[in-house]
Every structure is written in structure tokens, then in C-alpha cells.
């Protein structure tokens, strides 16, 4: 698993296992919507996309509990923003307790999308 490239003598050997992202989607507790648990990257994004497709097509306001989302990449954030833009006219996707990186990605790449609400702001 561990390999070196280039000529860098004295490279410390790392005992890091290969680790893939783990991700699950559960029902939100106490309100309609979904609870995202774990990490969204290119290994798990298809799970998120499938769930959003079911949840968002012709839907009203959508709630996502993100307190247990420990990582999300740009592709995952893009999925959220794009599916939010396909909700019924006037409806929004509400992101509850998103991790810092999701706030950061949305802020840097979209500013404040009209169909996304972040809670707390």
C-alpha cells in the first residue's frame, strides 16, 4: 500500500491503512427529511445522489440533518446545490448543522444560493 515516488531518502514509513469513506443515509428524527452520516467523496457520492433524486423531485421544503456528516467534497456539495435548485418553485433545502467544509465550499463557489438555507446561519 505504501509506496515512494521520487528520490527522497529518509522517508518515514507510515503505518496508515487504506481507508475508504463510509456513508449512510437515515431518516431525520423529529421532522421529515434525511440524516446524513459519515463522509461523502467520490466513493460514496452515488448514495447521496440516489437519495436526493428520490427526495427532491417535485418536492417542497427539504430538511437535511448534517451534524454527523464528517466530510463532504465539492462533488457532494454540488449535488446538494443542484438538487436544491430543482425543488418546487419557492421551496428550499434547509441544511441543519452543516460541517465547516460544506459551508466553506458553498460560500466560495456559489455565495448564497437562493434555494439553500443554512441553519444556524
Amino acid at each position, binding site marked *: 500500500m505504501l509506496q515512494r*515516488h*521520487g528520490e527522497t531518502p529518509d522517508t*518515514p514509513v*507510515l503505518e*496508515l491503512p*487504506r481507508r475508504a*469513506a463510509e456513508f449512510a443515509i437515515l431518516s431525520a428524527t423529529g421532522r421529515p427529511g434525511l440524516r446524513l452520516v459519515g463522509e461523502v467523496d*467520490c466513493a460514496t457520492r452515488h448514495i447521496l445522489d440516489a437519495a436526493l433524486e428520490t427526495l427532491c423531485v417535485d418536492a417542497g421544503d427539504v430538511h437535511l440533518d448534517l451534524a454527523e456528516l464528517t466530510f463532504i467534497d465539492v462533488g457532494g456539495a454540488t449535488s446538494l446545490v443542484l438538487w436544491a435548485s430543482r425543488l418546487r418553485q419557492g421551496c428550499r433545502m434547509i441544511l441543519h448543522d452543516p460541517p465547516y467544509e460544506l459551508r466553506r465550499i458553498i460560500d466560495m463557489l456559489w455565495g448564497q444560493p437562493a434555494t439553500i438555507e443554512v441553519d444556524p446561519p
Partner: protein
Amino acid sequence: MTPRTTETFVHEGLLYRGCADYLAGTVPFVRDGLDAGEPVLVAVPQPHVELISDELGGDAGQVRFLDMAKAGRNPNRIIPWVLRGFVDEFRGRPVRIIGEPIWPGRAPEEIPLCVQHEALINVALADAPAAVLCPYDANALDAGVLLYTGRTHPVLVEDGERRRHPGYADPYALVALLNLPLPEPTAPAAELTFDRLGLAGVRDLVGDRARRAGLAPRRVVDLQLAVNEIATNAVTHADGFGAVRVWQEGLRVLCEVRGPGELTDWMAGRLLPPPDSARGRGLLLANRLCDLVQTYVQPDAITTRLHMLI
């Protein structure tokens, strides 16, 4: 030489010697824009912001100022967030911009990226009704740096004279000429190979090393985000393995991803895609979050090195 116009794209280099010459070259450019009712952006290092602002007096309030040493610390950030951002804000109206991406004190490894950036402005704004003026300190910058001003700017201004420069080069050819191998790390690096099911391990490694180097917690997350995007490109644009290595040199953490692939466009990572586009934001975000992003393209591999200042 025809008079300056902002109806079509104009990109001029200003070679100045001393404060008075700097003001003589920049302030009339700003005033002409204000007189014509054009939005004006002055993106220069902070001491020059103050110089121009003081000279403009009460008119400074009509000008947008940016400290280029911050906004353009990573030169790859300037086109999407400084230049194109300003042009697009005014949707088709003629605008004027003073952009000073190279100043004395820029680190040597930043210079080729600045020159590539200057060349690609000619591509990024080719269709924009914008006049961009780029001051260069002819007294303090290295002769090697100054030689490139004529290759990246179709027009040079010096001693009050504007002349079309015969050495102006095709932007992509110039960018490719500066596609150079990156020096080997000067300190031991931690390394890992990965495939598309191993990106979590890449983030772990980078997070661990960056924290140990003393990078602030949110900057650690920024670096993990950036590396993850580059690593994603390495394993999804072409099936296979990538390799990542992380090390520290002085007060910066460096993280390099090497993977299979070919670069299709040097403008990648320098333009914001349309809001409804599903792709094209990974390298862009890395440029936004990191202090420097170096790329070396070989026929069958791309190496991307991210720098974070501690």
C-alpha cells in the same frame, strides 16, 4: 498607436521607475475611466493602494480597491475572483482594471505562476470590454521577470509612451514553456498511494501531517478539501492509482498529488462554471483555498503541488 479604448479587451504592461512614475502611469488611467463613467478596480499591493488612493483624493471613493498581496497571493486565483469577477459583475459594461500581480519580494517559485497568469489573462478576457493595466517595478524586479512583460502584454507603456510589443507570444505557448519539473522536497515526505476507494486515507494523512506542522485547524480542513479534489481528479478522470506526499519546508506545508491524466486546458481551475454545471469546480476550489498551486504536466501524468503557509 491608437488611443486607449475599453470597447474591446486591452492588456497593457506599465514599466515604472519610482513613485512619481507609478502615479503618472496609473492615475490618469483611473481618471479617464471615472470620467467615462466606467467601473474601476485597482488591485495592487497595499502600499500602492494607499499611493493611488491618496493621489485620487475625493475621487478614491468611486474606485474599488483590493490588496493584491492578499487577493492574489495565489496567482491562479486572480482571473476567476478578481478580474473575471469584476467584469462579470457589470455584465458587458466597459470596465478598467489596474492589476499588479508581480511585485518585488514575490517568492521565486511564485514568479512562473504569475507569468502564466499574465499570459492567460489574454485568453480569459479576450471577449471582455475591459482595459487591464499591469504595473511592473522596472527598478526592483529582476531583468528575467521584466523580459516576460513584453511576451504577456500586447502593449507596453514606458516613459509615457505606449507601443505595441513585437515579442508578444501566444498565451498557451508561453504557459507551456513554463511547464517545468518541480524541485524535489528538501525535507522528508510522508507518502501514500491511493485509488478511488482510498481517499479517506489521503485526507487522514494530510490532516495528520498538517496538524503536526502547526497549521491552524480550519486551514487543515481547507488543505484536506483541496487535496481531496486534486486526488479525486487523479483517480476519476483516469482509472488507476495516484500518489500523494506531504512535507514541511520552513513555514509552509506542501502536499503533492501525482496521478495519470492529461491536461486538456490550462484555463482549468481559473473560470467559474455556470451555476447549474455539475463539474469544473475542484481545481478552482484548490486555487481559492491554497496559497500556491503548482502544476507540472507530462504526457501521461499530472503533478499538482499545493502550498499552505503556516
